[in-house]
């Protein structure tokens, strides 16, 4: 068994990979199960980001280990839900990391704008 990784400071996680950032975004305002996360990301990015189950869980595993998200037993009150599904909830640390990443991206976009690098509309 390898040594448990030292807990990192929020800024040490940056920059986040695309799946991780997107997963945190999806969980920022609701608890979701695995497939719901994939659907949420697909809907928000208009199919630009499509996670596979393995990519998702590779990220989830790390996020759980880093305590950026936690597993919750089940979400009460949702009809037609499969009891086998596990739901994930973002932790305060996770929210903090997501915020820092958003700020980082914002700074980057701002710099691009200052250099007049605005995306061309097709």
């Amino acid at each position, binding site marked *: 068994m390898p040594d448990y990784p030292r807990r990192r400071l929020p800024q040490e996680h940056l920059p986040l990979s695309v799946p991780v950032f997107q997963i945190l975004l999806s969980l920022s305002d609701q608890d979701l199960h695995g497939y719901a996360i994939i659907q949420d990301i697909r809907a928000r990015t208009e199919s*630009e980001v499509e996670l596979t189950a393995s990519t998702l869980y590779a990220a989830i*595993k790390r996020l759980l280990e880093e305590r950026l998200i936690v597993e919750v037993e089940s979400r009460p009150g949702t009809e037609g839900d499969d009891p086998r599904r596990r739901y994930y909830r973002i932790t305060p640390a996770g929210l903090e990391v997501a915020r820092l990443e958003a700020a980082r991206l914002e700074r980057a976009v701002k710099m691009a704008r200052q250099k007049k690098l605005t995306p061309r509309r097709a």
Partner: protein
Amino acid sequence: MTRLYRVALRLLPRQTRERHGDQMATVFEDQVRDTRRRRGRLATCRLLIRELAALLRFAWCDRRGTSTPARIDERQFSWTLQPEQTTPMVTSFAQDLRYAARLLRRSPGFALVGIATMALAIGANTAVFSVVNGVLLKALPFDDADRVVVLGHHTNGGDDLDSTTPGNLYDWMRGVTAFEAIAGFSSTERIVTHRGSAERIRGGLSVGSIFAVLGRSAADGRTLTAVDDEPGAEPVMVLSDRLARRLFGEGGSVGQALAVNGIPHTIVGVMPPDFAFLDYDYEYWIPARFDAAFRNNRDQFFLAGIARLAPGTTMAQATAQLDTVTDAIRREYPQFNQNVVAAVVPVKTVLLDGVETRFLVLMGAVTFVLLIACANLGNLLLARASTRRREMAVRHALGAGHGRLVRQMLAESLLLGLLGGIAGLILGVVMLQVMLALLPDDLPRLKGVEFDATVLFYTLSVSVLAGLLFGAFPALQLASSPPMPALRDGGRGSTRAGLVRKGLVSSEVALALMLLVGAGLLVRSFTHLLAVPPGFAADRLLTFTASVPTAVYGAPSERLSFFENAARQLEAVPGVRAVTMTTTLPVTGRGSGAWFNIVDRPLPPNETPPGVPNRFVRANYFQVMGIPLRKGRLFDDGDRPGGTRAVIISESVARRFFADIDPIGRRIFMGAPDNRVVAESTIVGVVADVKQTGLAEAESEAVYIPNVMTPGISSLTFALRTSIPPASVAPAVRDVMRRLDPGVPIVRLQSMDDILGRATWPARSSMVLLSLFAGIALALAVMGVFGVLSYTVNQQTTEIGIRMALGASRRNVTMLVLGQGLAPVIVGLAAGAAGAVALTRFMETLLFGVTPTDSLTFGSVVTLLAATAAAAAYIPTRRATNVDPVRALRQE
């Protein structure tokens, strides 16, 4: 598809799989359902491939424990505007793959043939490898299983592992220090009574503690210890998980008691579900509890020893010590140990005795199939490559480096190999089910066969290797010939490529021939086996074994009258013509035996008499079984206690002991002089030989004794000759036996045909499987011959046109084309025949009634292959003779 993904999940480390595996599978399931609905079936295949690739990466990272957390697989999917961050080498290879995928999509026919060929070969490999992996390769479920050995004797210089006596075993326990632990065991079948219902169940007798040797502990309670084996110890037992569950349900069996042969035994432990002792179907373990006198017994050879080598000792050291102790035993008890030496055999060898060859032959067969498939695809790619010489030349002219072009070729074949591998994996799951249905179910360790990470890894590597192998042919050709001239000569094939193509055809034919010969030999063996007369009339015989509990039927006369009564009542069942009984049925095994002593030819006191199997039978045994009398008479009513002490011997016994004189009237006894199994009796008859141990074995010696002479026998096998199909009598038989005494369990109710079927099953399954693979090989080889010849004819259209314009007849052209097409076939046949002669001798142990170089088999296989190859060559040849010279020349 989800099932495949679940299997693939085994790639993940156990911990991760247990934590997330189910969730991943659920998500994948949803995704498949969703994708199919939104984008159709083809998209789900793409999803599977993408998913497997992602999983592979996840597994890789996770197993290595590397990669910065939260940053794995950044390149997993595309953010459309993400710039390429990869190195040029990787980029260009990715480009190669993409280009290859595009090419394959553009020629779907070629892709389909290629993928199907690979799938067939890889599927067969996957299926056979899963069985080989489960049966031969996986570690036994014991601690450090390589150090566990079985102890016994070799008798008369033979190789068989024979049992030993309690006396010898205890001497070994005391005298050999090379073992960390040593114990003995023997199979037993006892009547276990639980809540009033009695069953006869197989179990193991433990001398000392076999659990200490195996290094396994109980799942519940404890295992047996050496203390339990002391003569005065309380009767205790350990149950298998299966029996405990069946009798007591979940848990709670420890502390309960079961009556074993009428004596209550306390259950002290239950073993884990995966515990299997070698391959015995033992359902319980009880300590042997031999008394002091029996611990020194020297003439009952019925125990096997099992031991664990002490750390740091070798097999050789252990054997040497064992030999020293056994030499001392032999000096002290020469009469019993004169012909035996000590034997130490690794437990795995004992377990897999005879099975290994069967599987290695099958593994060889599928390897051949794979090689043939590779040769086929190599040919296909070569043909394609020469039609693409122009394209290559153009790309070269435009600046693509030589290496880049070769890499491009390899990318294509690698992609084909991988796609074939994925299809083969799916096909392999199906083939494995077929194989499992065909294999004998008493094959050792068959339960351990499954699709696991090892199998997946094997399939993956085989796919990649195969892809590289068949891709190597066109790639090498390209590398060795500068593409520039191709621009000039209009892209016609070179002679060199022609040679390679012919070489590939030859090797395909050679490999197919070797496989066909192997299959042919097994088919011939099997027909020989079926044709063996068993020595008795086997049809319409129903058999079963009944055992009376000795605690209830205490007096021998009670047992005898129970069996006799049962036989009489069974004779009254409609459809039953006659009923007989024996201690051991033909074909089912050697059964018990004892030393054979001829009264008027005593042996010197130091010499061990030869052992001969004996059968205690009802007087009408020979009439009912249909075993013919050769000399003397059969048993009659006078052969009972108070009358004549009569025995009947089989012809082979007569030949072995009474070659020079008439055996009738000779007097014999069986067993040790002071421990006689059969008292002094007169030989009254000689009957025909009956196969005792199996159809392929020569073993047919037997001494028959009327069962009334040994009334104490508590277990007898009934044989009912019926006038209707035996199975239809079975319910009535059960009824009769239950009415007589529900406390007497009956087991193995089956027809003699079932018994014979099982005896020939290993041979049948090997034959069917090898024939199947040989069939695939033949089909692939024929496709190869056809493909190459079609291609050659196409290339030669102009030449043929000129020849015909200059006056060549159809016959000339036919001979030319056929000659060209069949020359490599003939070379292949010769090479294959030579290879087969070299290889088939490894199959010798699987053959019966044929030699490894059986000329009939070789002859018919060569004819078959030559004929199919000629047939395959016919269509392109016809096309060649139909060439219209004018059109052919105009093409130029």
